[in-house]
């Protein structure tokens, strides 16, 4: 137990010292970043008074630039789905590095059962399996993909809880294994031409719908169910959780399984959106997912943070990416800015830890 003797020593307690939810900090950061881009848009000489988020040219019926809003959230939605799972792992005090390659491996595996037999009247040139695996109902590739995710997550969780391997190492190993599986599955060849049903999973704004509805579900689970409470308790004080009768090992396996299934689902959505699965997909996704969680106020030391925070963290990354495109700075600056913001988020987290605010 850390410092048990701080405070005034008495039982007096300052009721007025209401806790300031960390989500509000993230929201504030998000607004500040938007204001900065809006400001830059007005002052930079080459911008023609174009607005970042508002519809100044009356192209849409609303006051916002809907096209940009859609792009902002669409480009973080798939990684956002991963971040929902990674957040839970981090709340238990762990980490999951395997999600990016798991996205690729699941995309390959699921897509190989979601291909269509005939492309424009000709046999599918990218077919991996014979006709038996063609034009299957969409539920089959989805169930196979999610099962693969659950299997990988169960291995991660088992190594972490039963073999006491540090989560960083266990999931780093799985990172390489999954990338290997993705390459091995079709000997490095892309798998393409899915069925219309499969494509529909990732069509249009579907990734955003998946992301937001899963966010709502996991927000409810983390805040209102026993699963959520035990996840926080383990990250807060694993020993106390064990002493309280929580089956910590089993619970951790469940958390890693759920995280991996979310990453697997992200892989399915990504391949459906792209209409192709390639072994190199999902590069750096695990890191961006962790970044979303950390920016959103999920503490790397466990026990603290929320799904709302992660969603806001995802929005911060989306706004930065979109904002840099808006002020016409290329990807290299985006990466540097994101790196800086991630470090700033961790510094803020450590400051909060020390001061217990």
């Amino acid at each position, binding site marked *: 137990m850390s410092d048990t003797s701080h405070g005034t020593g008495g039982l007096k307690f300052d009721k007025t010292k209401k806790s300031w939810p960390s989500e509000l900090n993230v929201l504030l950061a998000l607004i500040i970043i938007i204001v900065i881009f809006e400001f830059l848009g007005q002052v930079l000489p080459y911008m023609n008074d174009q607005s970042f988020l508002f519809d100044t040219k009356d192209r849409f019926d609303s006051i916002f630039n809907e096209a940009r809003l859609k792009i902002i959230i669409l480009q973080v939605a798939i990684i956002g789905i991963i971040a929902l799972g990674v957040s839970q792992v981090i709340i238990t005090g762990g980490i999951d590095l395997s999600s990016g390659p798991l996205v690729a491996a699941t995309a390959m595996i699921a897509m190989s059962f979601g291909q269509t037999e005939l492309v424009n009247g000709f046999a599918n040139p990218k077919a991996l399996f014979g006709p038996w695996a063609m034009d299957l109902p969409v539920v089959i590739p989805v169930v196979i993909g999610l099962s693969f995710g659950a299997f990988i997550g169960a291995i991660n969780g088992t190594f972490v809880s039963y073999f006491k391997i540090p989560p960083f190492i266990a999931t780093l190993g799985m990172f390489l294994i999954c990338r290997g599986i993705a390459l091995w599955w079709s000997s490095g060849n892309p798998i393409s031409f899915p069925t219309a049903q499969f494509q529909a999973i990732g069509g249009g704004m579907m990734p955003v719908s998946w992301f937001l509805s899963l966010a709502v579900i996991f927000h409810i689970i983390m805040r209102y*169910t026993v699963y959520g409470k035990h996840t926080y*308790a383990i990250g*807060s004080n694993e020993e106390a959780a064990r002493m309280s*009768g929580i089956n910590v090992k089993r619970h951790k396996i469940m958390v890693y399984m759920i995280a991996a299934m979310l990453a697997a689902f992200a892989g399915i959505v990504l391949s459906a959106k792209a209409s192709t699965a390639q072994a190199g997909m999902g590069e750096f996704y695990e890191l961006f997912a962790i970044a979303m969680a950390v920016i959103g106020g999920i503490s790397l030391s466990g026990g603290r943070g929320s799904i709302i925070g992660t969603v806001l963290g995802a929005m911060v990354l989306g706004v930065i990416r979109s904002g840099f495109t808006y002020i016409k700075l290329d990807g290299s600056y985006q990466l540097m800015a994101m790196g800086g913001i991630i470090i700033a988020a961790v510094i803020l987290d450590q400051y909060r830890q020390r001061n217990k605010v």
Partner: protein
Amino acid sequence: MSEDIVLKTTDLTKHYGGVHALEGANFELRKGEHVAIMGDNGAGKSTFVRQITGVEQRTRGTVVFDGTEVNFSGPIEARESGIETVFQTLALADHLDVPDNLFLGREKTKWNWLGPFRFLDYKAMRQDTLAALEKTGVKIPNIHNTIEKMSGGQRQCVAIARTASFHSKLTIMDEPTAALGVQETEQVENIIRQLKAQGEPLILVSHNMRQVFDLADRIVVFRRGRICANLDIKTGDYTGEDVVSYITGAKTGAEYEGAA
């Protein structure tokens, strides 16, 4: 064996390799009785507690709890059969609030068909928490503050309220006030008096002579791994000095002659 004996150990012994941390402890606790365990550092007090609560496995001897011989494989099993322990290191989750901690691992839930995703009955837990705090006389201004924002005394009170709120058959406190200030100590002592008034038996490990004389019915003194005195301070005429001489080894209880 008498009906009203809650806990009885016979020849309870623990060796750590060649170190005889606890040797042949015969101990009895009756219903509603508050017994203090005293002794120097390393005298075997905590070792004794660890054998009863299943944190460690004893080398030899028997423990009879609530009329049956028990062999706890761990603290959870001990708690399930009714022994609640407040350890020196408080088993609280820092980022959770008071009801969450009180009900950790035994939450009140609804919609149980949802399995691990069954919903928490926050309302019932809040009501029970308030009742438990009232029962123990603990005053915590806002039970929805997280533990990390509380003083040491408040934390200790939460830990104790937690044990007291689950109708345990036996409560064990291992130096509950060692890290607390005067006011906080007083509050913890009030909780112990409440437990006494409710007739709940207690084993209190403490170094604080004044506290022990205030609260306990009986003092059991440990010295070098053995029980060396059993003093009924409610009826017998004992002073702190007597106890000190038992602790230091200047005296040994008549029935324990031959002990270390």
